[in-house]
């Protein structure tokens, strides 16, 4: 058996709250530090301690970072799950496990490497109460030895993970070395079939979660006010915002902040505060997940109708209801797009990479302020809470688009316009901010009927006029949202459409189609709603289109179906839907592609 280099996955099964997060991060970062592309997917329970959790490290010289279903190496630290975990392995996999687990009694087509973890840690860690945490470092050591991860890389990873805390590092180092020692002693004659070899493919790259990127992006795009109510998996976005803002947006002398983060009493209050802040003129945002989106429904309609900017990050998790709070999903796509009663439509963004989480933080504010409307940024648990490799983010040096705001200086416009007048023919009116002295520009913001001058009205004609302008405004937004991104020549007959965190799986699937199945396809990644012109054209110009989504009901497709330009195109569009809560693997796309096209082929044959 030859040795596979820099191309395999490690699946670590542990118990939640046992400190395995640090070990896994050290493992992943050490490989990254050796210049090898790597990604980590954390599958954790909705619980603080005791329930099973898994972490998958994918090592890929070619830089594929999507989740893989197959695992080459399994580490079993969890008594509750190891039987099932072992059963799920492909043939020939390697199992590193507690020595009290009898792997052979489960399967004999996998390689069992029993490790006396308890014994090793008892020796390596003098303090009993620390052993429960440190034991996880032992498997890092075992793996490091087998896989040839260098001590230097481990040290760098530890320094970063433990922020240089020497005592903690010493403790963990001891555990790792003990693991290494064990592996060295027990290594068989045959070489371990997987190993890493230094490369330079991560040079200059960063490893970051989408929520960190989004929080950072918000700090750098002038966000002044954040209100939110904690909810998995959105909480870390606000935590990162606070962390970076506390560092870079506090007056060094006075200790005063030029931002505020308010933990609201619930999501209704969170979005309410955001509206109050945006109305005052600050850039304001909130972050939440499904249940919070439901609770924001009433205010979302208010903001749409009264035309108040707001940025809402929805880090999607599995619904309906509480659902599976720690599983990923794209299940709020259609709900967010028309959130609230009555006729409403909201601008939505679909970041697909951590870099886009960073840049779209700014785009969202620009669009919200330009169009004076809420903007929903639909990320998800996979993108938000897992680590992705990326080029460092570019400093955003363009100025902010604060939209059409009139001040006391704008005498002419104040005289001629009115709050809801379509002066420019693009459906986007001019607004003013509280504090304006010129009474001609002072108005009352309300969710009840108002005419172009912002005066209360119950006249049907005024209402229709305003609603039609809102439609026009939305139409204007179509070509202001980020364009879709095309991969492929654009001239193929088959087109795939996907969005958000499906990107990594899609990239890889397209590659496999092209290289292994020899099928040339185009792949368009949609990045915003309303759909950019080019999305419609892509569908029009392809013979067959697959829309890949992570929900049951084909939600993005249901939005596409409302596009008048597409009424004749629908018969050629099919859904590929993945909704079991784990990140989309390329293999799922391939399998479904085969399934959907096989009938066709045989029909053609």
């Amino acid at each position, binding site marked *: 058996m030859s040795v596979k280099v820099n191309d395999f996955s490690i699946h670590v099964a542990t118990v939640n709250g046992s400190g395995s997060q640090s070990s896994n991060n050290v493992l992943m970062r050490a490989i990254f530090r050796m210049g090898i592309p790597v990604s980590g997917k954390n599958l954790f329970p909705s619980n603080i301690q005791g329930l099973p959790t898994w972490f998958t490290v994918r090592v890929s010289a070619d830089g594929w970072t999507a989740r893989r279903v197959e695992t080459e190496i399994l580490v079993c630290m969890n008594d509750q799950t190891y039987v099932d975990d072992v059963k799920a392995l492909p043939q020939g996999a390697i199992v590193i496990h507690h020595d009290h687990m009898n792997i052979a009694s489960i399967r004999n087509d996998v390689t069992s490497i029993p490790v006396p973890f308890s014994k090793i840690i008892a020796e390596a860690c003098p303090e009993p109460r620390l052993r429960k945490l440190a034991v996880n470092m032992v498997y890092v050591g075992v793996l490091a030895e087998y896989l040839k991860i260098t001590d230097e890389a481990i040290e760098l990873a530890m320094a*970063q993970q433990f922020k240089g805390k020497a005592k903690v590092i010493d403790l963990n180092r001891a555990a790792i070395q003990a693991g290494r020692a064990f592996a060295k002693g027990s290594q068989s004659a045959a070489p371990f079939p997987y190993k890493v070899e230094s490369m330079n493919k991560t040079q*200059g790259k*960063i*490893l*970051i979660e989408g929520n*960190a990127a989004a929080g*950072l992006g918000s700090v*750098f795009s*002038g*966000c*002044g*006010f954040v*209100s939110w109510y904690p909810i998995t998996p959105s909480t870390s976005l606000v935590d990162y915002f606070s962390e*970076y803002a506390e560092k*870079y*947006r506090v007056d060094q002398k006075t*200790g*005063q*902040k*030029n931002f*505020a983060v*308010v933990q*609201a*009493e619930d999501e*209704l*209050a*969170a*979005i*309410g*505060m955001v*509206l*109050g*802040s945006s*109305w*005052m*003129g*600050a*850039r304001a945002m909130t972050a939440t997940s499904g249940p919070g989106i439901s609770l924001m429904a*009433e*205010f979302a309609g208010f903001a749409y109708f009264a035309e108040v900017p707001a940025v809402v990050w929805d880090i999607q998790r599995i619904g309906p209801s509480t659902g599976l709070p720690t599983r990923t999903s794209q299940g709020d796509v259609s709900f967010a797009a028309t959130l609230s009663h009555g006729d409403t439509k909201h601008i939505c963004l679909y970041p697909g990479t951590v870099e886009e989480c960073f840049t779209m933080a700014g785009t969202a504010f620009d669009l919200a302020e330009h169009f004076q409307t809420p903007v929903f940024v639909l990320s998800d648990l996979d993108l938000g809470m897992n680590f992705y490799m990326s080029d*460092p*983010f570019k*400093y*955003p*040096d363009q*100025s*902010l688009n604060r939209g059409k705001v009139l001040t006391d200086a704008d005498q002419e416009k104040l005289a001629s316009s009115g709050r809801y007048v379509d002066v420019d023919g693009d459906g986007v009116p001019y607004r003013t*901010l*509280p*504090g*304006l*002295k010129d*009474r001609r520009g*002072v*108005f*009352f*913001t309300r*969710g*009840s009927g108002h005419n172009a001058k912002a005066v*209360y009205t119950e006249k049907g004609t005024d209402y229709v006029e305003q609603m039609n302008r809102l439609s026009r405004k939305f139409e204007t937004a179509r070509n202001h949202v980020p364009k879709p991104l095309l991969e492929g020549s654009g001239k193929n007959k088959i087109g795939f459409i996907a969005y958000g965190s499906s990107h990594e799986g899609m990239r890889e699937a397209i590659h496999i189609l092209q290289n292994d199945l020899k099928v040339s396809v185009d792949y368009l990644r949609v990045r915003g709603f309303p759909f950019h012109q080019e999305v419609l054209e892509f569908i029009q110009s392809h013979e067959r289109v697959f829309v890949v989504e992570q929900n049951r009901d084909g939600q993005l497709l249901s939005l596409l179906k409302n596009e008048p330009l597409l009424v004749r195109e629908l018969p050629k569009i099919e859904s590929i839907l993945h909704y079991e809560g784990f990140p989309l693997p390329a293999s799922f796309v391939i399998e479904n592609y085969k399934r959907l096209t096989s009938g066709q082929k045989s029909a053609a044959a």
Partner: protein
Amino acid sequence: MVTPNRVGLTKKDYFGSASTLCTGCGHDSVTLHLISSFYEMEVEPHQVAKFSGIGCSSKTPAYFLSGSHGFNAVHGRMPSVATGAAMSNRSMMNIAVSGDGDTASIGMGQFVHIIRRNVPLLYIIENNGVYGLTKGQFSATSDKGSLQKKGEINTLESIDLCLLALELGCGYVGRSFSGDAKQMVPLIKGGLSHKGTAVLDVISPCITFNNHEGSTKSYKFVKDHDQAIHEIGFVPSYTPLDVDYDHGTTKVIDLPNGSHLTLKKIDRDYDPTNRQAAFEVLHRARSEGALLTGLFYINPDTVPFQDVMKLAETPLVQLSLSELRPSKSALDEVMESLK
């Protein structure tokens, strides 16, 4: 009306659009008291932000200070909007008008939490014991035993918003009657001068649905039962305090903006800086079915939410891009840490 105040504005400059409430509605009197207060306090309308929820009462902000921006939120959720606004521009003077339905039913959660945060604003509840705009259902402030227009008896205990505010640590708590300009105007001015959340529960009768015999929120009932705990006055910062106050009968309270409240004894000694006493008096009144009005409690040393949150003195909305966006080197530093 036509005499300009020292910022050059006449009372008319403090008007809003014409009221569409019922003739005789208590809320319209509150509007008048607000107009008088702002005019006399010489506030420039553009420095004021107005907030409300939904209900007849919540329409009030449209009827005063048309020179101020106003935000008529959704039902019961105005406090959150006001909180976001206050945090984003701390230079504004904030006035919020709500109803008993808007506050004590659907708005209870947000009411509790705005008080807890001590967001600087004067929060007036135009309390009529019913849902006026939806035609007269009992609200949560309707007294047990009070009769509905059609004869139904309210069987649930009322919520006393002053006691609740006190319990939640509110630093300015008063009650008044829409018909009592003399008491309301100084209470409004004091509330507008306060540094944190000021709650003013104003019995403001609904002439259409809750002004009948048997209602405890009718004009007649309130007039018959209203007992002021003191005679309250407001002395603006630019007027020297009368040195002749009898300190035995008149208490003077210094407000943060240099103005003062004067509280002249009526029947009893009442110290509105004594929170415990406020509880006792109000609990006793409640059990006796008495209707007390006046300033129940004031804590002039309260710390507003912006200071609790260590917010910069400059309002957030006045910060420039260069202040809001950290430097390139900051981003570089972050990127470096992620490598």
